[in-house]
């Protein structure tokens, strides 16, 4: 059974990746999850320097989902390389670094620094975080911005470049196309949906940042649709995510067109989810007689259903 896939020059042994911001720097999970068994580990979004993020409350639960406004608290790229990367290498994790910037130059600078560091497998460009005012999503919500960031980073690194798309746009597939044209090796989607919750007694927002990003099973049907649209638009590998919590969810994204997937919120609920998902994938491949898991990608059968019965 072959569960592997390629993203640019990078080979992942299976399609299961820990989603950025939902798995700390990976090291937090190292004693309960064998990191080398994951397809990859996308670490928390990193800027050039340290950031304290937003004050609490930073999360609030909503129906089948959660809002977060962490505000990209992080230790910055230098401390990451010094303090976290060595352990991640030792644990043989495939490290995908999620990078952020308030300016185009910052993305480029962070990418350059990480490209020189041993043990980084790929760069995921976070141009889609809804929780910071400057940078980020302003690139992700404009086609030219997306193109600009991707091509600028492309120029300074030989690592696979994976822009992460925001779902908060009218036509996500056009952003995938812009990324493809700018030389991306893959796209990942979706980041969280900009959302809000209010305490009706205090009449204050439940998050200190007023708005936050919605993740979890609630958003899965929208994310699947977006992956499907991107699959119909670009040839690039697609890393799909949004609400994955069971092996059927993984399969749904792959059948819709994702080559790999990330799991975020569900890892909070079940940090031992990874082996369950892997077992489930193997079982499905056995039951459905699928030798190469990548053969499943984009196989959704949309041949017209019995529309013909009606003349109207």
């Amino acid at each position: 059974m072959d569960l592997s896939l390629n993203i640019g020059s990078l080979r992942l042994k299976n399609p299961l990746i820990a989603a950025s911001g939902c798995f700390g720097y990976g090291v937090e999970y190292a004693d309960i999850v064998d990191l080398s068994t994951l397809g990859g580990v996308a670490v928390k979004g990193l800027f050039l320097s340290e950031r304290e993020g937003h004050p609490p409350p930073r999360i609030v639960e909503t129906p089948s989902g959660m809002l977060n406004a962490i505000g990209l608290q992080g230790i910055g790229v230098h401390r990451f390389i010094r303090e976290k990367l060595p352990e991640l290498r030792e644990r043989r994790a495939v490290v995908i670094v999620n990078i952020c910037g308030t300016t185009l130059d910052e993305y480029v600078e962070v990418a350059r620094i990480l490209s020189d560091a041993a043990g980084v497998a790929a760069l995921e460009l976070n141009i889609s975080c809804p929780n910071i005012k400057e940078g980020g999503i302003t690139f992700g919500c404009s086609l030219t911005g997306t193109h600009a960031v991707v091509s600028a980073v492309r120029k300074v690194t030989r690592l696979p470049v994976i822009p992460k798309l925001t779902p908060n746009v009218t036509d996500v597939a056009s952003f995938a196309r812009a990324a493809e044209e700018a030389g991306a090796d893959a796209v990942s989607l979706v980041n969280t949906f900009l959302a809000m919750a209010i305490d009706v007694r205090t009449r204050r927002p439940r998050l200190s940042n007023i708005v936050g990003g919605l993740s979890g099973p609630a958003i899965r049907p929208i994310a699947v649709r977006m992956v499907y649209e991107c699959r119909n638009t670009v040839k690039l590998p697609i890393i799909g995510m949004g609400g994955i919590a069971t092996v059927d969810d993984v399969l749904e994204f792959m059948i819709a067109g994702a080559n790999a997937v990330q799991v975020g919120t569900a890892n909070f609920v079940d940090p031992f989810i990874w082996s369950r998902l892997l077992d489930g994938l193997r079982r499905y491949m056995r039951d459905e007689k699928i030798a190469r898991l990548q053969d499943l990608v984009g196989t959704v059968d949309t041949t017209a259903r019995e529309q013909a019965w009606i003349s109207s």
Partner: protein
Amino acid sequence: MAQVYTRDMPVDIDATVMGNRRLSADYNVLAIDAPEIASRARPGQFVMMKTSRGLDPLLRRPFSIFEILRDDGGAPRGVSLLNKRVGGGTSLLYQAESGARLACLGPLGRPFEPVDPPAEAWMVAGGVGLAPFLTLAEALHARATPTMLFYGARHAGELYCVDRFETLGVRVVLATEDGSRGAHGRVTAPLESALSRRPLGEPLKLYVCGPTAMMRACAALAASHGRACDVSLEQVMGCGLGGCYSCVVLARDDSGRPHHTRTCIDGPVFEASRIVWDAVDAH
């Protein structure tokens, strides 16, 4: 400097509810069959509970380990939780029936460090903040540390398990806001007078858990009386493992600079003096 502790690897148990003792209309003690957690747990640690089997609620909820339950031979068999009904998840745990199965992940978090005699341990609990102290009292009892419990609640009906502490040799001081049992008013009043009466040469350490306002007041009392004070914080937690950065509190590092620090892995127990209390949301 923050104390260093080596964490025992947490385990996730699809645990069976062994019993549910309702103490009042809002409080219950839920017994959970989880030997692997019970045998590793240290005083003040917590578990992350799924409160239902489905998606509602989605996330786990953090609960202090209230008791280590032992079988007839004394081997750790399970843990109990002192649960207070405040929303959807705690309501489900209030209603849970014996035989139900709920995922329980733990033990988690930085435990209390019990002091040794001749130092005394003074525990200060407000409401459901009592939860982490029974395991601490046992550890203190084991090392023969003289121990007090200052325990406050709104009224007499909300003071639970006092005898359990007394059995462990803990001297208990009670306070209720309506005066229905113990001192009338907040528990910080008897605490303050006890602190004032205490010669500085006799060492003691405060351990505090309760509403934010109470912990803040205790931190101030500890500082003004020059006493060590640990608090156990209750921030909203998404994962309990350091993965999400939801549970942060503003705490000073060694150089005195405040940082957003994860209470699930760097806490829930903190030295009170490290916390920037004005930045802690009162809930």
